[in-house]
């Protein structure tokens, strides 16, 4: 079976890449630069540790990373101060590419990172991880450095969840198992081989990331997989086992809202790719119920999943990265457009 063959060839363990000197040789031989993007919003508890460890181990000891940047969504705690204290470049997302408006969401930060960071490879790592380790970076860049056919690497791991003061042995991945995996099985069966498609840890080549649209909210990881798959096929992917990742838990109700956003992004791509047809626009209202004071109360959330266009279509980006060339000559592939219904939206 194709998926099993892909799994065999393109699934790695972080220990395959723990010899950082060896990775460094690959990086230098290819003349590549690597940027680490840490999207943040009120992460003062964990951001310091992440930056200290990544800077010490992957910049000071071995210059695998060329830059570490925090792209912040407007934290009201000390996230930015702590990040700057330990040597990260700190960008407030709303202050950059402001002529294109601003939306709040992780995807917005990842999209703007393409403009703000200079690396040929961009590594994205979440900032709520309690057991951060250099493997979260070298495990992801490893396949990209040793195999030019790989364009995008996804992490998977055990996910004990921080709950009170103890760890529970299992958990997490609920949206994956009850939403994404069934949908992938129905419409993109090859992508089911990606073991944790919603993982927030991944790395990609700029050359493909600049070609795809970025939903600003929950759907960014799902969209990346589908869009890169449409562009380059399954051979562009690899995945790495990062062993164990401890992060904050989200309650089921919050995951429900996440699933809503992911589903909208997914359905819009199905329509774009001609796999389903529906009239008009998808609703943006997510309805949930809570029980309080003996009564059920309706709570409504507007979840739009605005999408940013491929960065290569942004004039400021082209001027910064391809000042001498037309984008079409710089890139072999035409960029993917965001699904048409997602182009509208109010800026904040």
């Amino acid at each position, binding site marked *: 079976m194709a998926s099993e063959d892909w799994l065999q060839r393109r699934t790695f363990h972080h220990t395959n890449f723990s010899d950082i000197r060896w990775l460094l040789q690959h990086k230098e031989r290819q003349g590549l630069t690597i940027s680490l993007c840490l999207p943040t919003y009120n992460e*003062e*508890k*964990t951001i*310091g*540790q992440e*930056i*200290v*460890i990544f*800077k*010490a*181990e992957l910049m*000071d*000891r071995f210059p695998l990373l060329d830059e570490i940047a925090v792209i912040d969504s407007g934290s009201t705690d*000390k996230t930015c*101060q*702590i990040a700057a*204290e*330990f*040597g990260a470049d700190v960008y407030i997302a709303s202050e950059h590419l402001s002529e294109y408006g601003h939306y709040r969401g992780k995807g917005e930060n990842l999209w703007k990172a393409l403009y703000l960071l200079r690396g040929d490879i961009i590594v994205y790592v979440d900032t709520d991880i*309690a*057991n951060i*380790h250099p493997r979260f970076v070298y495990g992801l860049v490893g396949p990209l450095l040793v195999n030019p056919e790989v364009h995008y690497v996804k992490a998977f791991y055990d996910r004990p969840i*921080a709950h009170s*003061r*103890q*760890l529970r042995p299992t958990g997490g991945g609920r949206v994956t198992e009850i939403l994404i995996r069934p949908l992938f099985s129905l419409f993109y069966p090859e992508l089911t081989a990606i073991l944790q498609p919603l993982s927030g840890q991944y790395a990609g080549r700029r050359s493909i990331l600049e070609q795809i649209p970025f939903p600003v909210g929950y759907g960014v990881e799902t969209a990346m997989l589908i869009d890169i798959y449409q562009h380059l096929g399954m051979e562009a992917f690899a995945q790495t086992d990062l062993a164990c990742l401890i992060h904050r838990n989200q309650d089921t109700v919050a995951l429900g809202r996440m699933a809503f956003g992911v589903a909208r992004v997914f359905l819009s791509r199905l329509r774009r790719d001609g796999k389903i047809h529906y009239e008009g626009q998808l609703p943006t209202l997510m309805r949930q119920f809570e029980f309080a004071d003996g009564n059920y109360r309706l709570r409504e959330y507007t979840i739009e999943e605005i999408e940013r266009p491929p960065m290569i279509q942004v004039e400021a980006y082209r001027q910064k990265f391809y000042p001498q060339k037309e984008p079409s000559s710089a890139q072999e592939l035409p960029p993917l457009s965001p699904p048409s219904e997602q182009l509208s939206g109010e800026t904040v």
Partner: protein
Amino acid sequence: MTVTVPVRRPVEELPEALKPLRERILSNLTMLARLPAPPGREQDRVQFLLDRFLEAGLTDATTDEIGNAVGRIRGRRGNRTILVVSHLDDIVRSGTEHEITVRADRVIGPGVSDNALGAAVVAILPTILEHLNIELNSNLILLGSILSLERGNHRGIRFFLDQYPEDIHFGICVEGIELGRLDFFSIATARADLVCQVRNGGAPSRPYGSESALVVLNQIINRILGIPVPVRPYTVIRMGKLRAGVSYDTEPTRALLGLEIVSHEDDQVDRILREIEAICFEMSARHAVEAKLDVFFRTRAAGIPFGHRLVTSSIEVMRKLGIEPDQRHTPSEVSEMIARDIPAVTLGITRGRKHQRPKPDYVLIEPILRGVAQVVGVLLAIDSGACDGI
């Protein structure tokens, strides 16, 4: 006396020179602190140190027979051998999540101050020397010792000192806190658990005595409080731990008191231990319990004179770095070295807090580079010969 420091820059400039290594020290600290290391289960931290030593080119870094992490840097002349040691174990309560938070001014988390920071400094010392272009004349041994705390009773360093085939001429013990700490003598110390166990499991058929180990232990405590404790020589009995019972409606059949006796004179500790044992014997007979004193940790009173050149050199290095010396005698590995006639001092790296539950342990970041510079400064003073002789 002037400390001759054979390095291109004066001691005062070392903190600035060490700035590029700050994040590496903090990285060592956070990664070590995340590894649980109760006495006897320090293997992950041992491996961490060995990895760091090997990466720094200490090709013969290895464990000794008991499991200490040992790294060696041969000196140019090898005319003396200096041991720099940090204990790797901690006494973080079992089940505690080793979650570390790095703030702008401090690192917070279980065990960061005692003694993940000390171990982090020992782990990076070869890199520091290389960074500063320092090549010592003396041989340098870096030791991450296991089985130091609680019932470990310094077993790791005692094994190392007793088995190491070459003479060790000087020692530096590195502790996370407090900056300015300068231990150069060992106070007589005994640590013991006093366990009170009700005979027959507290069966109601017992003809006499208490059925509550807690009540009997309370009476024992009152008797201990009545033991004469002199002001001079300085002597104190500390009762630090008390454990008994599981529920409100059941009298405990077992109760435990953890206590420490310290004195400037061994005789006082011996006397107090004898008196406590007599109390245990009497109370056992009176109340139908088994009250037993288990002394699991002993150090003897010893030290090097205040005027020893190692002490005066250390003070001079501290003062050059703006560190106010605080002479103490907290039990540490230094006592084992002094007991073997090895001049040694314990130095603290920064300010912080330890063992004050429920308040979390922490270490301040800003003083760390001065603390590390102090270790390097004392190392250089020893290497220059400034600490030789009394």
